[in-house]
């Protein structure tokens, strides 16, 4: 079972306590966005075989949203971090680089 550390309440939460919230760090598209970009925003989710960043909610715990960095093949968790950021913290990126040199995800690497 997937276990994620909630960066707010400090609990190591089982998957059954959490609800998945999809791709992290989405840039929202507003009115006037060209069709291409709007399509990308609505439908073209990151779906990598490897390093992935996503949102989770500690639904049956403290209720807070947070971020997680995880490998979609091995299920290894590289770390979790608070929701109030627009990109992954350097420390997490460095940790991933240590384990998966050359990784990239969306605009990050």
């Amino acid at each position: 079972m997937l276990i994620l550390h909630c960066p707010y309440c400090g609990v190591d939460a089982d998957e059954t306590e959490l609800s998945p919230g999809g791709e992290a760090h989405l840039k929202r598209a507003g009115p006037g966005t060209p069709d291409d970009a709007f399509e990308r925003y609505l439908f073209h989710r990151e779906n990598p075989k490897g390093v992935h960043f996503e949102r989770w909610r500690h639904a049956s715990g403290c209720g807070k949203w947070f971020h997680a960095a995880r490998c979609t093949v091995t299920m290894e968790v590289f770390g979790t971090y608070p929701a109030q950021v627009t990109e992954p913290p350097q420390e997490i990126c460095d940790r991933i680089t240590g384990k998966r040199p050359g990784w990239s995800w969306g605009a990050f690497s």
Partner: protein
Amino acid sequence: MKRYSAFAIAREALRGHTGWDRAWGSPQPKDRYDVVIIGAGGHGLATAYYLGKNHGVKNVAILEKGWLGGGNTGRNTTIIRSNYLQDASAAIYEKSRSLYETLSQDLNYNVMFSPRGVMMLAQTQHEIRGYRRTAHANALQGVATEFIGPQRVKELCPIINIDGPRYPVLGALWQPRGGTARHDAVAWGYARACSAMGMHVIQKCEVTGVKTEGGKVTGVATTRGDIACGKLGIVVAGHSGVVAEMAGFRLPVESVALQALVSEPIKPCMDVVVMANTVHGYMSQSDKGEMVIGGGADGYNNYTQRGSFHHIEETVRALVETFPMISRLKMLRQWGGIVDMTGDRSPILSKTPVEGVFINCGWGTGGFKAIPGSGWGFAELMAKGASPLTAEFGLERFREGRFIDESVAAGVAH
């Protein structure tokens, strides 16, 4: 190819089974094919078969990174039905179901199609309304389904507990000509027929790159060398995003693990397929006597072919409530497959931004039933550039907001 028949069995019985041919060849890849299909699952193989049979395109290779049918085609719970809500879906799924009726004869390979009937239980008022609506839509589409009451459910499947504590059975959407087939046999039967037409089914050959020139496909790079092609069909289910990226475009698809499990074999106890969408579980009995049980999909992207453990518990809990007699049953095996989910829960059969590259994906949790129909339509699309069966399923529907929304209609979409 020597034909299989009762006579052939008798003949071989008399000479110690020494005269059977290999069912399909294992050729060395050539430098070039007119058409290359990536993925030897049911959809890829069926596409190749109908390219040859309906359109005379036979210089075809089907490249498979693992083994024949080792993806979702060999991992599913084999439910075949066509009781969808939208017209475009009903058309392709019913075409497919009707092709299954005669597939064994067509392929000269027993795919064990068993139209034993599929019943989708209504356990809430909302489901009653939803399934009545589907039954009406199906009547207009020419798909034979009907809404039946709880007594009829009990007659058709005596082991169901119709007045369960939480969700009594209030009725069901019944498709008498739905059923099951042997999944491996579908892959093997198509592979044998493709091989007999001179096509190359090449296993252990992973595509690692897609080559283009001036926006047009020229071939693929594989673990067994480069292979040139005129047209390329990508039919790789859960890995569609990975292969599309090699060709340089994005798909509105996310990959998750979906699970199934089977019990120890028991005496025959149910001869229909039952799906219970509210409590989330479905079950049928295989010819070997195992209860075949379909579980839930993970809620987050992954490629593990395993699935989360707690889904098993949820599924089994739901089924024990619906079928109390299975509470002491031992489970034998559990597994997962990586399914390709689209936002509207409908497939994509489409041209792509790269000329000569076509994609068939997004069948998600429910594409086994669609294998013959999808192959039929996709082959026509690849050969002629358009097909009435696939017209609505283009990639552009997302940008244009023309969804074929089956997410509500289909409930548990298997």
